[in-house]
């Protein structure tokens, strides 16, 4: 419970690093994707350029208060996830405000941003926004099932819900990572991660070809800039969460960067291979193999 200004500044620095890393990661991933299809792809600095442009647009419109607040909620979701997550194991500087709560807090804080986005998009009054939100929420419900199973499984495994302690329990070598000690939970969680990142085949929420971009249809300018900032932070934070839970955490930024990159790449990799699911397909899919893996992950501890 450290409310000192030093802590605040360190956290801000961490946030800065994470945001930039998130943007770099996304451009890198897109470049990799381009190379796979034989293109050169965007310049590595493209996300910053886009963001700068979005923040410097000259005209903005708003549909109402909630529309205005929606991006704030959304960004708060990402920032909050970062704030409540210890980034670097054993480091006071990079543990952020993780003393506020444990894994459960983080799991539920994800909803904060989703809710804000949903409401903001809703006030936009655009039908596609609502359709996108309804799809997103529907998919999210079943994404959570394998995730919950996996979380419970590792809580049983490590007798704790505290992320720092979970990471601490994985220290001691490559083979003490959860991915080896509890492969089923890892499998379930990594499959549910696919849905959480929303790449193909689970990108029906934004589905640009059908419901132009989904929830953020009406968002532009600074609002969209907020959403993009959030994406950068959220991707790193979620990957860092998975890193902490399953891949031994990180003791320094390099390790964090490598691991989060690989975790994020996993979802992109899958996305490059598979076409898009319809919503009922994805809802059902998460209740099949991932859930089964999750159940196995618990059964082995019974």
């Amino acid at each position: 419970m450290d409310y000192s200004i030093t802590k605040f500044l360190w956290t801000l620095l961490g946030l800065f690093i994470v945001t930039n890393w998130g943007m770099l990661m996304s451009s890198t991933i897109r470049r990799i994707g381009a190379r796979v299809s034989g293109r050169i792809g965007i310049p590595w600095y493209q996300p910053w350029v886009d963001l700068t442009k979005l923040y410097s647009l000259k005209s903005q419109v708003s549909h109402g208060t909630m529309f205005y607040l929606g991006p704030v909620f959304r960004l708060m979701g990402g920032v909050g996830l970062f704030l409540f997550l210890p980034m670097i194991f054993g480091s006071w500087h990079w543990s952020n405000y993780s003393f506020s709560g444990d894994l459960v807090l983080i799991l539920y804080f994800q909803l904060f941003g989703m809710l804000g986005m949903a409401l903001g998009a809703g006030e936009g009054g655009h039908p596609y926004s609502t359709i996108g939100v309804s799809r997103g929420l529907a998919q999210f419900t079943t994404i959570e099932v394998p995730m919950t199973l996996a979380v419970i499984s590792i809580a049983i495994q490590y007798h704790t819900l505290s992320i720092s302690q979970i990471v601490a329990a994985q220290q001691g070598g490559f083979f003490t990572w959860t991915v080896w000690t509890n492969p089923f939970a890892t499998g379930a969680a990594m499959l549910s991660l696919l849905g959480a990142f929303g790449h193909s085949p689970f990108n029906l929420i934004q589905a640009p070809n059908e419901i132009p971009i989904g929830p953020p249809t009406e968002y532009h300018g600074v609002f969209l800039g907020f959403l993009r900032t959030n994406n950068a932070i959220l991707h790193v934070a979620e990957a860092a969460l998975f890193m902490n839970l399953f891949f031994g955490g990180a003791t320094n930024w390099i390790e964090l960067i490598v691991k989060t990159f690989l975790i994020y790449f996993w979802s992109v990799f899958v996305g490059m291979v598979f076409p898009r699911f319809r919503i009922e397909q994805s809802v059902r899919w998460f209740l099949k193999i991932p859930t089964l893996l999750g159940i196995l992950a618990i059964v082995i501890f019974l």
Partner: protein
Amino acid sequence: MVTPIYIVAVILGLAFLLGILKSSMTRLGSILMIGGLVFITFVSGQWLYEFLVNHRATDIIYTAGFLPPYAINLQMGLNEAILTTMINIVGLLGGIYLLDSLKKTGINSMAIFIVFVMSLNVIVMTRDIFNLFVFLEISSIATGGLILLDNKRKAFQAGMKYIIATGIISNFLLIGIIFSYYFASSLNIDGLIAANLMSIKGGAIALFTIYVSIILELKPFPANGWGIDVYTASNPGISALISAGSATAALFVAYKLMPMGGSFWLPYFAIIGAITFIGSNLMGTRQENPNRLLGYSSIGQVGLILMIIGLSPYLGKDTLLIGFSILISHYAAKAGLFWLSGIIKSKNIQGWSALRKHPYLLFLFGTFIFALIGFPPFPSFFGKWNLIMALAAHGQYAWMTAILAGSFTEAIYLFKWLGYSIKLEVPEDITIKFEWNKYLPIYLMGILLYFMGMYLAPFTEGGVYINFLPLAFVFLLFALDFLPVYVKNTLSIAGIIWYMVRLFPLLEHDLMREIFAGIFLGGAVLTLVAGYAKKGKRPGFYPMALLMFSGLVGLIEANTLLEFFFSWELMTAGSYFLIIRGKRSMPHGYSYMLFSIGGAYAILFGLALAYASGLNISLAALGHITQLTTLAYTLLAVGFMTKTASLGLHIWLPGAHGEAESDVSPMVSAILLKAGVFGLMLLFFYMGTGTPGSEKLLYVLGWVGALTALSGNLGAVFQEDAKRLLAYSSIGQLGYILFSITMMTQLGWLAGFTYTINHFMFKAILFLVIGGIVVKLGTHNMYEMGGMIKKMPYSFVAVLISIIVIGGIPPLSGFAGKWLLYNAVIQKGWYFQGVVVFFAGVIAFLYLFKLIHSVFLGQLKDNHRNMKEISAWILIPSYILIIGIMVFSAFPQWVLKPIGNMLTVYFPKSLYWQGTRAFTSLGYWDGTTTMIVVVTAFTLLLGWLVIASKKVKRIGQFNIVYAAERPYRPETTHVSYNIYAGYKKALGFLVTPVVETFWENVSDMVLDFSGWLRRIYSGNMQNYALHVVLFIVVFYLIALGGL
């Protein structure tokens, strides 16, 4: 002292006098008749006074001066005094009621009438069986004569059937009497008892004949077609007299003759009584004619009392009290109902909605119905309570089941009837005109019921503790019902606050009770504040709301099983009336009532088992159930779960809560449901984990809770009706609570308490606000709303905060529940249940988004443009609750710490506090810090946005990018209807209404069965005669077949 012989003498004299009067002198005749009736009422009343006040000894009156057997003797004891008074009162009131008809048919009918009343008196008093026979015959001849009063085809037929049947029966009685005399050489009952006929060879047959005749006089099922026809066809005044008077007398005969045969016959009495009770009530379920329905009900009640007589060995000295309690309820209620039916003159029970224009008569009607079912504070409640307790003490579970089953079937049709009369359109062709002589008897009977209820309460063990104070307040408000709404509202709130101030010191720091008292009474005040928004008088609302709240507060105060059950039933009654006030809520109120009564009977059974285990009436007896322990706890849990609407028992809730009025929904949802939670918590407290079988029970209930949460939430997702959505959400939330507390750990219970408090707050807000909006917009359908955020920003904020709490999103208090539950689940090892519950928690998001989006966001509809914010009276309580939520969210330790400490007495401590930080062996959470972090970060980000987006233009409703087109209408642009179609495709199979179908099938089966069964009443009088004969034969073969 006037000896009772004058009853006979004066009436006979009067009858002869009336006979010689000229037929035109009806005025004198009626004065004489009433005078005679007043006189005999006075005589019996005077005796009653003597017995009650002066404790006079039983008196025997010898008619001819000889001792029996040489002369007939009459006995006048306490019982006789009570019964003759009852008979004479109903005779007198009936005489007043029938005055017009009697005047019309002439003086002779008046003579018959008083002779009839007199004969019933003698039947009660006489100790000579031949005399008994004679007066039975006189009474049935008189009845036959009185039936002729109504010059109607149906009355003739019914009378004929009656005479044929009673003729056969009395002839058999005569045979029995002859043989008894032959074997015992005595016609005196005492002499016959002394002779012990059962020991004499052949005496058993004589006794059998007597008994079977007496039983047949009571119209046992199924040999009672003739009796029902009489009830149906004769003048309601006569039916009232038959039902209240003849049945009373005949029952006393059965009681009087009982010692003759000893214990051999009692089981048969009980069996026949039980069959009659259940059978004729079952018949009633398909009945639409009110008089016939009352006939079935009368016969059922008589069957019940016959059963009580038969069960007297188990009941011991309480037999008379129990029998009397039920008899007096039946007596007053049935007389009142028959008289009412004479006023309304409707061919079917739907026509009784004519009562709606006459609130006092409607109130009386409700009184009679509730008295018949056995609701407090009526005598039958205490009767049934004592009956069940005594039976349980002797382990007579089958009889208990039979009684409760019969009572339940009775409730089926009585509440259908009540519901019709409250809710159906007032028929145009039925007019009720005021006639004092018809109103007065009904009023008196109603008052008698309340009086007797209060009078009999102390006779029951633990009854002296019952707190009638809240009930008195209810009556006060009923009396003040003519006042405008704000006066009554203020009065109610003031009363509740006063009671709260009075109550809290009495709770002696019992935290659980304090919390629930806070929810019940605090919630009451808050929801009543919203009532200021209503205009007009809201007739009947305040008494009923307060009745419910007095029931709820009674639950808190209860120290004994009786008080608890008493309050439970009061609460049920009050909430029934509240629920049924909604526009379309008749079927829902009905199913609510049936489930409630079913649940209440399960609770009663359980409480009886608790009582039987130590003959201890205190609530602590729940902790020491030794009789059928698991069954008892299961029944209690199921009973409470009907109130919390757990899976399988939930089908009443969506309709009942969804269709209720806008400020009733929060009462029943946010507050009333907590009564079930309170019951469950109390039960689990006392049950503990050590009791045999409790582990399994808890495990099953845990799964039930988890699945309830899932199905409730899933059900809500696919709702289009805003209030039903909230109702389904309540089912889900109550599922969480059930699940949490079945874990029986400190964390689980803490989660349970957190959910309870949260649910109270957010559901009250949601139902208040959404209810207000629904009223304002004039529709329940969410897809017809939209865009309300611009018109009702305060409502939006209230709803937003509530849904954040429901979703369990940090930093608000909903997360406390989720965090505790996570820890509890992992600690307890209920992983899969936990996953189901958490899955349900995420599903909650779907309906929450649907709710807030469809109502507040999206497109504003054209016809809602001029909407204003909902009434401040609704917003004020909502915002008070929001402050509560905020405080709970920022400082959860203020609430959770004391609860945790309280729970450490019962469960091992597993939640620790370190300042604002809570931690368990698994994880930690700091509500205050979370709040600070989130609020700070949010403010910073908002500030950033404000700076970064310098100038933002507010644009119009249709200024959306619409693929370069423009929207057509708001209605077609607002996405709300069936927005989770894809989800339905994937998981819709989970919401197939299995439970509804199951209960529908059950009810269809019952109704089909009763429809099939009632074909025995073919209407042919010869068949009825055959039934009587067959009854005798079958009874003989069963009872004495071996002899």
